[in-house]
């Protein structure tokens, strides 16, 4: 047991065949107490959630709800080895994200025709995709934009690496080939299995990241619109989003979507609320930009899963609508600034500076922490966090009201992942090397999500350019939602091999090189 960073062999906590680790980590008195208090907070959240009879009913109705028993373990995975400010950053984020997801679940079950069946509430709900920028909800203070896919598949896989397998199998039994992206495949499986809450006055689907995601919408619409009678607006955002001549179309699509929501909910767009949200979007953007600037120096502060997981939630699902995120943005920035001034480090040694590119394995989100703790590779930033850094109009003027449609369109076009997988090769290929230079990175960890055709389609070009530029490129294959195809250890082995054979290095923490976590959550 050790107080100092890297003083403890973290791999020893994993037990073959067990879902949970053998014990909690000792981080010194102050940090351990703090960590324990946050664990208690999470347990409190869970207790509060299950106190409502409708949520208990949902626990028995929806198969994926069982994954939520693993919430505390998920947090523990993301705090491995963390001390001081980094531990606090992680808990600040995770506490808020968990609170937000609990609220989402509670709302879903409240309106769900099968559970709470609160019709009045349901009539004020607009369903949105899990991977969707929710900018079109920034002017509807009295409506709830709820995503069913976020808790059923997206968060579930974060909690339990095996969570999506059943739904993937359901979709394949229905006739879907096994070579499509397992994320929309699992979402389609939930729909085919009729395992999603039914509620809402209407829904908005979006052409988010890929052809699979786009097409999965059709399967969901078949159930939701054609059987459950929830009208759907398909928000068809331009694919070539960097082109000037698609922007008017994109803005018009936003206007049409807002009009659709107004028609189906009876609510009117509220400009005051929109600009209030826009101001918060800008605060989040400024904070993220500041963190990224720090990450370009020798003392990066908000990086790895602390950056990735929080950005994923805050950028798209929240999009300025939840004031609590503004508070946390500012607290995180204050912690990071102080740590930066004090030249603090998250691990005992930083050996390599890496840009993590591609679509990361969802069933192994704590991989970013693992490469740091095991090999001293600093994941300075990742592709999914490299999103919009432009400010949007936040003052209510007649010109800005028109500009606002373009801003919402711009945000929607630049959804996480989508902003790189669509829009031509430059945003995926050329900008990576620019980031390598900006961040002074000596290596790229390139996630090769097997079924992601947008990434696969640039495979050869990534290799050629990396060779040309003398950057170490480590391919890490995975299958996003399906740990059966490539296990977590399979993911780790790819890095282990490269570090040993090419760099000829020994790990910082050898106990982490091979972990018996195949059966863990």
């Amino acid at each position, binding site marked *: 047991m050790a107080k100092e960073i890297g003083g403890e062999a973290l791999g020893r906590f994993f037990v073959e065949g067990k879902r949970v680790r053998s014990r909690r980590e000792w981080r010194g008195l102050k940090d351990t107490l703090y960590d324990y208090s946050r664990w208690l907070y999470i347990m409190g959240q869970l207790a509060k959630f299950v106190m409502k009879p409708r949520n208990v009913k949902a626990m028995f109705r929806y198969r994926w709800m069982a994954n939520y028993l693993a919430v505390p373990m998920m947090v523990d995975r993301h705090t491995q080895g963390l001390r001081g400010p980094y531990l606090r950053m992680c808990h600040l984020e995770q506490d808020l994200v968990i609170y937000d997801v609990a609220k989402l679940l509670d709302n879903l079950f409240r309106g769900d025709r099968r559970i709470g069946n609160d019709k009045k509430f349901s009539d004020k709900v607009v369903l949105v995709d899990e991977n969707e920028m929710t900018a079109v909800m920034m002017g509807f203070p009295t409506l709830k934009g709820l995503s069913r896919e976020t808790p059923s598949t997206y968060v579930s896989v974060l909690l339990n690496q095996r969570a999506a397998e059943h739904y993937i199998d359901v979709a394949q039994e229905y006739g879907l080939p096994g070579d499509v992206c397992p994320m929309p495949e699992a979402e389609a499986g939930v729909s085919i299995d009729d395992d999603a809450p039914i509620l809402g006055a209407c829904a908005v689907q979006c052409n988010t990241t890929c052809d699979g995601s786009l097409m999965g919408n059709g399967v969901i619409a078949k159930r939701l619109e054609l059987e459950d009678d929830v009208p759907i607006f*398909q928000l068809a955002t331009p694919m070539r989003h960097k082109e000037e001549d698609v922007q008017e179309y994109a803005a018009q699509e936003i206007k049409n979507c807002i009009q659709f929501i107004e028609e189906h909910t009876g609510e009117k767009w509220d400009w005051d609320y929109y600009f209030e949200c826009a101001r918060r979007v800008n605060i989040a953007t400024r904070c993220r930009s500041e963190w990224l600037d720090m990450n370009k120096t020798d003392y990066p502060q908000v990086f790895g899963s602390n950056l990735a997981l929080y950005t994923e939630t805050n950028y798209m699902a929240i999009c300025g609508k939840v004031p609590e995120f503004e508070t946390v943005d500012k607290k995180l920035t204050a912690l990071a600034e102080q740590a930066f001034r004090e030249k603090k480090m998250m691990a005992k040694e930083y050996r390599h500076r890496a840009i993590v590119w591609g679509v990361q394995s969802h069933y192994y989100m704590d991989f970013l922490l693992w490469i740091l703790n095991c090999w001293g590779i600093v994941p300075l930033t990742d592709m999914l966090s490299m999103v919009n850094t432009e400010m949007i109009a936040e003052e209510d003027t007649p010109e800005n009201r028109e500009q606002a449609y373009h801003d919402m369109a711009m945000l929607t076009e630049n959804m996480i992942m989508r902003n790189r997988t669509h829009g031509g090769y430059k945003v995926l290929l050329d900008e990576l090397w620019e980031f390598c230079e900006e961040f002074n990175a000596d290596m790229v960890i390139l996630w090769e999500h097997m079924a992601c055709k947008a990434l696969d*389609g640039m495979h050869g070009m990534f290799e050629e350019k990396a060779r040309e530029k003398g950057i170490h490129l480590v391919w890490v294959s995975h299958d996003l939602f399906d740990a059966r195809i490539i296990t977590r250890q399979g993911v780790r082995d790819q890095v282990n091999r490269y570090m040993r054979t090419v760099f000829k290095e020994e790990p910082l923490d050898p106990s982490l090189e091979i972990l018996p976590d195949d059966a863990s959550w």
Partner: protein
Amino acid sequence: MKDLKHLYYFEKLLEDANNDLIRQAKDEGNICVGTVCENVPEPLLNLPGTFSSRLRAPRTGSMEMATYYLTSFLCEYSRALLERAIEGGFNYLDCLIAPDGCTMINRCVENMELLKTMGQGNDKFFHEYMEIPQKGDQNGLDLYVLQCQNHILNPLKEHYGIDISDAAIRKAVEEHNEVCRLIRAIGDYRKEDNPRITGYEFHIITMATYCAPKRLVIDKLKETLEELKTREPDEKNKFRARVVFVGSEVDDVDVIKLVEESGAYVCADRFCYGSFPGRDEIILNDDEDALTQVCRAYQQRGACPRYWDTPKVVGRREYVAALAKEYKADGIIYEQMKFCDPWAYERMVGTVVLRDDYGYPVLQVDRPYSIGASGQMRTRVQAFVESIEIKKIQGGVHNG
């Protein structure tokens, strides 16, 4: 049946992307516009002084170089095209206009550009990428018109001085419609109980109209139509079932042949490179500019799964059911090129809907780009034909 007089000629044309008629048109000073997707309106590529060549890679063998660049997870159509481009097989093009139709074909063309596979010795050569609509609404149409103007018409005018006026577009539509009328008239013979044209023959003829300059095949199409008027079918129909063939890109001459050798007559072709909806006429009026009307026609008839608004999605299945009814099909084959995401989903849901809601027996298959003499496919089609026969004997599922 007696062989069609020009069938061998059409078959020879399809043996090479850069076929005799393309070379002839180029020699006559015409500009060859390459494209890779049905969503790029053909008449706009066939203006006076230009002609289109829808890319394919006949006689594809190894795809190793393309697999290095694209990995083995991208569909073989995109890999075969990239391989052929790297080999220099598309050097005859004067430009390549690609829509952001699906991710894979988009990446394929981007790799072609990055690897500088075309345009050597032609400093006017250009690549253009188009945004195309994903919905059948007015906003989508406005986008379509603007994109066609900016990424087809204007570059053709700027680089090659092509006349892109309304009159030129109308002339191109006229020629396009003539081909469509001929193909539709030839295809109508497939409605007969004992048809005088096979699905394979029709597929070859139709495909030639996508792969060769239209104006140079019209005469042979006319002659073929005339010939069909008096062609005697075999006394005994050798086919055991009639199917609509629905799915993704099919430019392999062997696919329909294999299905028909397995006992299923392909009475209607609803796929890219097929006649439905690709050979529908475009009816123009004089009240509106031709460009908008062409785009609207393509948008409204578009049956590509990338259109994902509910009316279009539902409409696609209704369209298949209507074809099955009109062409008296006993069953439907939904095919998908392996690794094609849009058709993976479309075929899954289409299969269920056509079977459950419309009562058709449906076979869903995936296939490679070059099917050759695939035993797997043959077995599956044979089994499907048998199952249709058994249903008929048992008086089971109705056939629409």
